[in-house]
């Protein structure tokens, strides 16, 4: 029969959204912070981002070939991972080390577990953690921004390091908000990160649940523990991680109740590590630990189908 009728299962309409479109939206949302990183730390920030992205994309491309799986580099998820990894590195990082971080994130964490949708922890965060343990000196070298009052000094302590030593931070809130402080290249400019986050919420790429609950938990906990909550939420990688990394679809719960539990857990762990741990910052570890707990959280917060009543254990 010539040109037969197409038979498919219902529904016969689709909203038109695609994985690639979502990743593109995330990249758009990340761009203000990328611009800010170049303004704050100079052109080397751009070089780190480019190397990290190139490493991730190449790793993704080659992994799919070696693993004999359909090519997936076009979905742009590797680009997002690359940008996020770069955002979590100090600007002074040797470029070859940034490239290794990308390989770890994509090959070990993502593709070895089946690729997009199957990795159980956030690739960029594990890439960062592996780099922290492999290159501790380079990963703890904090260059001061080009902008701002202390422009003549080359390196300095991050606000969280100062806080963890029990001292008062020397940065005022305006500088913290604009990102004029030492730190990883994409994490410092809270303004740019918030702009990206608002864009993602408006485009309905993410729901605001995880960022709000995560940041809210950190705020309340640090306040209860007697620290300055505003400095805490504006410092370190909290904004970057809460908006862009804890909200990673694959490694966070699929239901709202689960997301609340997940975000509270991230917040509690972050404060515990910052306050009582040996590291000044704990967002990466908190999110990765909570990533691992996602299957359990989902089981505990399973949505109740329409028309069913929650049963008590003894019934």
């Amino acid at each position, binding site marked *: 029969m010539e040109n037969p*009728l197409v*038979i498919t*299962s219902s529904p016969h309409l689709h909203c038109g959204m695609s994985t690639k479109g979502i990743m593109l939206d995330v990249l758009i949302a990340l761009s203000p912070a990328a611009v800010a990183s170049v303004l704050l730390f100079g052109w080397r920030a751009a070089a780190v981002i480019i190397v990290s992205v190139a490493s991730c994309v190449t790793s993704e491309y080659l992994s799919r070939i070696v693993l004999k799986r359909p090519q997936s580099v076009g979905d742009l998820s590797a680009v997002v991972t690359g940008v996020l990894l770069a955002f979590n590195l100090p600007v002074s990082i040797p470029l070859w080390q940034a490239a290794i971080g990308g390989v770890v994130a994509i090959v070990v964490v993502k593709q070895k577990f089946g690729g*997009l*949708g199957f990795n159980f922890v956030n690739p960029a965060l594990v890439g960062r953690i592996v780099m922290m343990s492999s290159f501790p000196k380079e990963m703890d070298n904090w260059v001061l921004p080009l902008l701002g009052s202390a422009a003549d000094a080359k390196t300095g302590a991050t606000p969280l390091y100062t806080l963890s030593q029990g001292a008062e931070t020397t940065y005022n809130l305006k500088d913290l908000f604009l990102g004029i402080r030492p730190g990883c290249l994409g994490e410092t400019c809270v303004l740019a990160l918030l702009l990206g986050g608002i864009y993602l919420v408006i485009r309905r790429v993410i729901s605001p649940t995880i960022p709000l609950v995560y940041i809210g938990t950190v705020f309340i906990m640090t306040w209860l523990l007697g620290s300055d909550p505003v400095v805490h939420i504006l410092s370190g990688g909290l904004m970057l991680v809460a908006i862009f990394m804890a909200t990673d679809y694959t490694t966070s719960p699929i239901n709202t109740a689960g997301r609340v539990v997940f975000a509270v857990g991230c917040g509690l762990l972050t404060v515990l590590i910052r306050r009582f741990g040996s590291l000044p910052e704990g967002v990466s570890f908190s999110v990765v630990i909570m990533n691992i707990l996602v299957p359990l959280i989902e089981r505990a917060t399973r949505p109740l189908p329409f028309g*069913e009543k929650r049963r008590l254990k003894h019934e």
Partner: protein
Amino acid sequence: MSLKEWLLMQTRGGVHAPHCKHTAECETIVMPPPERVIIAMSQHIGAPCTPTVKVGDTVLVGQVVGDSDKPVSAPIHSGVSGKVTAISELLLPDGKKTDAVVIESDGEQRIHQSVKPPVVESYDDFIKAVRQSGLVGLGGAGFPTHIKLQPKDLDKVDTIIINAAECEPYITSDYRECMEYPQDIISGALTVMEYLNADRVIIAVERNKPAAITELSKIAAEVTRPGHEVFVKSLPARYPQGAEKVLIKTCTGRIVPKGKLPADVGCIVMNVNSIAFLARYLKTGMPLVDKRLTVDGSAISHPKNVRAVIGTPIRDVIEFSGGTKNKIRKLLMGGPMMGIALMDDGLPVLKQNNAIIAMTEDDVTINEPSACIRCGRCVKACPMNLAPPTIEAAYMTDDTGLQEKLGVTTCMECGCCSYVCPASRRIVQTMRLSKQAVSKSKSKS
């Protein structure tokens, strides 16, 4: 309304699908009987009918051509007068095979002697008349109405909900009924309320049909009285607002428990076309022999609403509507969210059809499904509060116990999950397979 009541009436999930109600203002045009009708013997949920006529018989309009002695069934009538030329096998859109009575029309439309207003003096007479009318749920499900009107516990039923939500894109068949026969709708509703001894009739219409709401409210206000209320409720225009369980919750705040029927929470839901038909049947005695169809889609030259005799080949209906302007690549019986794609345009119109949607190549984009990114959009869109990715994982591991525990049998295949999936995964298809696996394992044990 108190805040608590309001909260109870809220429903979750759903999607904002494009409305595409192009034919809303197209008055129904009656299609003359075709040369030949193919009357399927299974046009309802339940036992199929067996033909009551033989090849060579002369049949008249309104004559029974198929019936069954099984309780869950409804008789089938001829919509033309003419000669039975064949009784052949027909492959229905859902893949089931059934007998079909083929009648060559003589064009005279002589009416059978049995067509006269039924004598209804009691509830039993009423149920008998409903059965004789051949009425099944015209909203699409095709459940025999006389069975629906005999719930296990009749005293419990206090609310009749008339479903005019019409949340499926494109379809305007229910809307046209509201605009063209509002009196019949109200009169049918009053009759059902009387015989079922209910307290109220709620006519549920989506907010995007303000003219229907105004029209029906006006007539409802004239007939409503304390203890026997009739009123119109305007609903959010959100697919699948017209799904039975969703509708009951939005109208009454009641939740139909898993595995139970609307009557168990005191509700009977009837499609607006069904109720208006019932009113006309009680007046004229003409059984269900024709049906209003919305003919639309990008391949149709002149979208419109057509009243066609049941059994008319779809090809003829499209021809009558003005034909196609582009090549049809996908032909749907029903709306684009839950309709069935047809393999052949020679299939006949069935009782429960309310639309023919003909799509062109451009609308038939098939994206290859990619890996689930666990974005949770399907979970958010599910009106039944299910988690499709979790069910899919359980299905892949053949764990039917877990699939059932996750509530897959509650799935009504509304399609919201597939509609929103950015990875274009065939979620509804997986849910169907999972439901089949669960019912198979149950029948085994």
